């Protein structure tokens, strides 16, 4: 969503925008905030892949949150946007950027609000390594994260389900990453300023050791979309197809 490398590339030729950026108040759009929350939730669900049985209550609550976001995004018609930035690298990077968030907040911690990030990062990194080595072939029919959840919860057939869990995880990654680099460039050429703002907000937040970016996320007073849908506009016809697969329920 706000991959640093790509972002820079994106803005290289757009110095005239930078002037205006300085004047823009960094409040990420509702869509971006919601997207960030969705990403965070998906990462959390994936991290439930631990040595001890995951906490079912926590998993259920996170899954319900994901479902809420998905429902709202589907209603808004903004569900397409989930894939605007995905490429072979980008989807992993998108998850990485969430991780960077958390990592930097741990570094800032000094007895602040950060608990076991060691575990968080460690598990996440081992998942990353695992999945990164998978070869991406065709996008097969992917179940939604719901499948992820059910596989995680279905304790009665654990061995089988651990395999399934990994498989559905892979499927999600496959789908997300099944984009040629060219179209990605196109996507990013139209990326909105607000991406940059969110990123600034987030990094700024971390260095201030405030609970910063989430302040804006806290303004979710109503589930209705307040920002325009045009933020992430792009020609996504070829992605719609993949999105439909993802959303299939």
């Amino acid at each position: 969503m706000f991959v640093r490398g790509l972002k820079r590339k994106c803005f290289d030729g757009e110095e005239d925008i930078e002037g205006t950026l300085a004047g823009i108040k960094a409040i990420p759009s509702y869509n971006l905030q919601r997207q960030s929350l969705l990403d965070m939730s998906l990462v959390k669900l994936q991290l439930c892949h631990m040595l001890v049985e995951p906490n079912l209550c926590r998993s259920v609550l996170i899954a319900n949150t994901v479902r809420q976001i998905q429902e709202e995004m589907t209603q808004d018609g903004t569900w397409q946007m989930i894939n605007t930035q995905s490429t072979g690298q980008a989807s992993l990077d998108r998850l990485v950027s969430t991780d960077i968030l958390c990592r930097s907040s741990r570094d800032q911690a000094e007895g602040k609000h950060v608990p076991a990030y060691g575990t968080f990062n460690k598990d996440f990194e081992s998942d990353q390594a695992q999945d990164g080595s998978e070869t991406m072939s065709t996008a097969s029919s992917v179940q939604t994260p719901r499948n992820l959840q059910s596989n995680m919860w279905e304790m009665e057939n654990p061995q089988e389900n651990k395999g399934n869990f990994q498989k559905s995880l892979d499927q999600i990654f496959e789908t997300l990453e099944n984009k040629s680099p060219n179209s990605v460039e196109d996507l990013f050429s139209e990326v909105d300023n607000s991406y940059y703002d969110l990123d600034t907000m987030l990094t700024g937040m971390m260095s201030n050791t405030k609970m910063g970016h989430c302040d804006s996320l806290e303004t979710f007073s109503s589930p209705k979309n307040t920002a325009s849908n045009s933020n992430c506009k792009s020609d996504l016809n070829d992605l719609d197809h993949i999105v439909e697969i993802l959303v299939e329920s």
Partner: protein
Amino acid sequence: FLGAGGGNDIQWCFSQVKGAVDDDVAEADIISTVEFNHSGELLATGDKGGRVVIFQQEQENKTQSHSRGEYNVYSTFQSHEPEFDYLKSLEIEEKINKIRWLPQKNAAQFLLSTNDKTIKLWKISERDKRPEGYNLKEEDGRYRDPTTVTTLRVPVFRPMDLMVEASPRRIFANAHTYHINSISINSDYETYLSADDLRINLWHLEITDRSFNIVDIKPANMEELTEVITAAEFHPNSCSTFVYSSSKGTIRLCDMRASALCDRHSKLFEEPEDPSNRSFFSEIISSISDVKFSHSGRYMMTRDYLSVKIWDLNMENRPVETYQVHEYLRSKLCSLYENDCIFDKFECCWNGSDRQVEFFSLIVMTGSYNNFFRMFDRNTKRDITLEASRENNKPRTVLKPRKVCASGKRKKDEISVDSLDFNKKILHTAWHPKENIIAVATTNNLYIFQDKMN
């Protein structure tokens, strides 16, 4: 008179602190449950390493009438060991989730302790005598050659140093697929319930190879799972009544006389959502982490992430009282979601029942972050925030109330929300059943506070 308000407010003073002084917390030492026994003489803690430590209150010293007896270690034992579930290739944590004492019937004490999967009944007994003078055995235990025995004597009991022994009397295993979050002993003192995420089982204390399933909310298709059981408790007086709370903020009261499987509740307690406070986190923060009946059984108290609610059992559609524990966190929910703090399960407890005023549950206590804990007086509607910290450890000095500054200019002595340490959480607290003595568990230390006696 407890909590009568006015000049009779309780003044809390530091009494003792147990546990390592190190800032570096050993994971096994993390306290996971705290419980007084029915007389208050014994105080049990369970930890992540599967150990139970029981403290005993000293008999009151006549010369030291200004303070109640101190708590000293009485018994320590390994209750649960880590296990490996080979079928699922998963570890079963030895962490003690709950301890519940049985009322004392004879010289020995009994308690139930549970980890995620197995409940154990422990007998704690004292031995202060031992037999001496056997005919066939030497004092060191070696057997004598019978041909050397020329006279006979009767062995006698002689005093010895007090030894406290803990032995497992019953092991209630293999009844829970999911993680046990609650155990509750029935008022009949013969049966008890154990609750996991999706099921509640009824046991008889004498029978370990059978348990009855009384609640089952597991959906046929796990993909449809949206709600789990978070806590359960028997009614203090009615042995057929119990309640269980859910991750969606509801409490169901069930009557076991209605049917064998209590899937249909007798009462459903739920407060309608406040639309102005709605966010993606609304459901998570409504998840109930603890439920406790009042002494009389007329009320019950629930703890969710931000508040404590008192319910009248006769009114299902809303609580009669709501107390905000740390409302200043409402604007920080996203960060707390990110760092997982939003999933912390805080417990709550009632004051003990006063000798003079039986069955009056007047004060509520619960924990928060930064090693703060909160008390709410139902009569006066006043509340106080106190801190469990070694810095305040001068006995008989009244604890200074703390204040969190939510926003704006921070006054002197106030602490701002952003400075709170979210690693220092008080999840477990307990109130002596009869006296104004409280036990407050920080991550790995146990604090004991008493009210200042005049």
